[in-house]
């Protein structure tokens, strides 16, 4: 992944191509690390070599998801024969060198670097959101900082930028490591943050130093996840939520997305890769939420709505020969939606008009649920537990008031909920398990896998294949695992031929007469995660390439999909994302219902509430939305 990043020319000499054969001639170099001879791969950096040999070298600006920067200098080591200390993260080994990672010179240099960083780092640890999860704090502890050799800032220098619904920037805590810059420019290709100024006046800023809400930030929050300190954080609504919980006149509802439950264990110091669905439900009730719903229910609903929309578009294009916008893009990821609104506003018609599961649920809670339970919608406080920073922005979009009230009142991230659980004195892993509340109850595995990249596509395919061909998905893909759309490659592409068709199911009978027009067609689909990959697909579509012939494309703004979202526990890297994905797919495997259209609650809601069916008038009012052509020019 690193090689593919758009590394500046100045950095390219640092990248040494590694040999293709691990045991070929000249592919190994014998180096001495701390007087111990070890064999390392030619071109490996000192940092990688040390890690392989269980030698800890501290890092700060280095992040496995990002390109090498070498600007914090904390990883300096002594290389024999070199006049100065060298940064381990950016030094490729090409000769038999002798390295010392803990000589007096190295220790002194590192201590000075930490002292210098602290001399410009304003703030007290105990009032910081990153307390006990801060890389600078950890370094200070590791190197026994007991006094501020070069002083400490007593007064804040920068104003805290609270303009954004999602991301709060407190540049007083910034150590200029530029991880957020590399995240925003290389990883996400959004390009909101850069280093402004020079020398001691350098700071991270936006275009024309505008507040974050006024620039083209897509609110994905990836920068928060990579910030080593508390300089970037999510806009935390937990105080207001506590007030609502403590208010007896309020009915506080929480919906939980699939990804937080696969990651929340990490907040409690557990290894990633285990889901805590049942435990989380109990913990939420003990905190004081009145009911706990599963966002997967509306994920299932999204599949039905978005799938129907796709079928209608295809029907118009293939049978009625009308002009329609194809390929259809998914609209579940609010970061991606805003990215498209900013960077490719001309493709807004391709975006599915279906709301994201969070907003669908918000609209249903304050209409269907409120009617059913006889609660005044104005007394309902609707909270959404999401792995996402952009969901905070999404629920504050002015058009998201279809229930007559603000559909979702607050977006809460996994980290913030973890903190609330701790505040309530609950140790999550020891909670007994409990189920979700009716009337939405348990959802399907298809809704669950929305959390991983390719999940929306897989869920859609499970339903489309069954509804169109009348065959079981299990007959086409073993165990209904649609593996071509799984995995972490940046862009996935698949073709699904439709060789036979079955009868039109009752739900769709009023929309299409039969499936014969689909017989012999090949469904072309693609999946992209991370907006940098989305950009590649969009540029290809613009140029009329192979993706412009696709029918349906899933986009997720964050690398790995929601499970790598900007609201997930820190740190997040490729290994951790894989573990979280495993947790999600394991849970999907263990569920009795694994297809959206088999979710009985979904069938029920079309029977009693959304009576004119998918994409009908009621569902259009409550479950669909429109988008804004924002463009990227800032006046």
């Amino acid at each position, binding site marked *: 992944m690193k090689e593919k990043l758009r590394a500046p020319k100045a950095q390219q000499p640092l990248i040494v191509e590694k040999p293709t054969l691990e045991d070929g001639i000249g592919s190994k170099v014998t180096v001495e690390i701390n007087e111990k001879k070890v064999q390392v791969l030619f071109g490996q950096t000192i940092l990688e070599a040390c890690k392989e040999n269980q030698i800890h070298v501290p890092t700060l600006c280095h992040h496995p998801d990002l390109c090498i920067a070498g600007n914090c200098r904390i990883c300096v080591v002594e290389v024999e024969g070199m006049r100065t200390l060298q940064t381990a993260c950016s030094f490729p080994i090409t000769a038999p060198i002798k390295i010392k990672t803990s000589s007096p010179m190295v220790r002194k240099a590192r201590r000075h670097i930490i002292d210098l960083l602290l001399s410009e780092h304003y703030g007290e640890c105990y009032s910081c959101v990153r307390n006990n999860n801060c890389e600078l704090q950890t370094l200070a502890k590791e190197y026994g900082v007991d006094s501020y050799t070069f002083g400490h800032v007593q007064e804040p220098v920068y104003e805290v930028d609270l303009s954004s619904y999602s991301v709060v920037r407190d540049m007083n805590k910034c150590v200029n490591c530029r991880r957020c810059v590399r995240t925003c420019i290389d990883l996400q290709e959004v390009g909101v943050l850069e280093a402004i100024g*020079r020398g001691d006046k350098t700071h991270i800023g936006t275009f*024309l130093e505008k507040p974050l809400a006024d620039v083209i930030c897509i609110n994905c929050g990836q920068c928060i996840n990579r910030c080593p300190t508390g300089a970037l954080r999510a806009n935390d609504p937990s105080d207001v939520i506590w007030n609502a919980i403590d208010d007896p006149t309020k009915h506080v509802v929480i919906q939980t997305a699939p990804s937080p439950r696969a990651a929340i264990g990490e907040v409690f110091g557990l290894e990633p890769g285990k889901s805590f669905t049942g435990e989380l439900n109990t913990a939420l009730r003990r905190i004081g939420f009145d009911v706990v719903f599963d966002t997967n229910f509306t994920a299932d609903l999204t599949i039905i709505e978005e799938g129907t929309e796709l079928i209608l578009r295809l029907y118009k294009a293939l049978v009625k020969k009308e002009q329609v916008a194809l390929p259809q893009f998914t609209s579940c990821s609010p970061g991606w939606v805003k990215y498209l609104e900013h960077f490719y506003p001309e493709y807004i018609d391709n975006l599915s008009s279906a709301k994201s599961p969070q907003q669908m649920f918000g609209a249903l809670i304050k209409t269907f649920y409120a009617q059913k339970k006889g609660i005044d919608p104005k007394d309902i406080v609707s909270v959404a537990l999401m792995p996402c920073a952009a969901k905070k922005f999404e629920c504050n979009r002015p058009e998201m008031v279809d229930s007559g009230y603000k559909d979702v009142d607050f977006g809460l991230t996994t980290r913030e909920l973890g903190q609330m659980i701790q505040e309530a004195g609950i140790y999550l892993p020891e909670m007994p398990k409990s189920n979700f509340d009716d009337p939405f109850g348990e959802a399907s595995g298809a809704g669950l896998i929305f959390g991983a990249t390719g999940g929306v596509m897989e869920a859609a395919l499970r339903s489309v294949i069954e509804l169109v061909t009348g065959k079981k998905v299990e007959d086409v893909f073993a165990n209904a695992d649609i593996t071509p759309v799984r995995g972490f490659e940046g862009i996935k592409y698949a073709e699904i031929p439709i060789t036979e068709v079955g009868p039109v199911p009752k739900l769709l009978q009023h929309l299409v007469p039969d499936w014969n027009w689909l017989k012999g067609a090949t469904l072309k689909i693609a999946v992209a995660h991370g907006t940098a990959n989305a950009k590649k697909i969009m540029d290809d579509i613009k140029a009329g390439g192979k993706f412009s012939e696709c029918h349906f494309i899933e986009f997720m703004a964050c690398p790995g999909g929601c499970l790598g979202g900007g609201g997930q526990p820190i740190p997040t890297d490729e290994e951790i994302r894989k573990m979280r994905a495993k947790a999600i797919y394991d849970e999907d495997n263990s569920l009795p219902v694994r297809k959206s259209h088999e979710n009985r609650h979904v069938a029920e809601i079309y029977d009693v509430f959304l009576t004119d069916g998918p994409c009908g008038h009621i569902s259009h009012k409550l479950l669909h939305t429109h988008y804004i052509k924002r463009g990227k020019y800032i006046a």
Partner: protein
Amino acid sequence: MLVVEKNALSEEIEGYVNKYGKDRSSLLPVLQAIQRKHSYINDFAQQEVARLLDIHPVEVFSVISFYSFLHSKPTGRNIVRLCQTISCDMANKSKVVQAIERELGIKFGETTKDNRITLEFTNCIGMCDQGPAMIVNDRVYTKLDPEKAVNILNEIK
């Protein structure tokens, strides 16, 4: 900005990009060309450069903020840069500063009301043996004293 002005500016920048190449590395020559012509690079020009070179506007802004000879805010018609580094400082720079500030009625870092002159300090310009030195637009003046400096400034239009 009027649409007509915007279009003219876009066209002009397109010309520079065609001349210097459509690549990240032509960013500086393009910015210098705009700076020469307009004396500063406005918001719209920055975004146009970004669009044409396929980079992000914030990267353009970052580069402009890094170099003191590039401006993102309007300056006076003439820019006077007085060297503030140690050799010039020891060669009685402060007397020259006082004289210039008294003559123009503005401080360093400011622009005169008639938009004629912007005063700035600069770091070493390599005239250490002939200090104090200053640059007026592209021309270097050395061995200044208060009287000489004021005379030079009065001659600028």
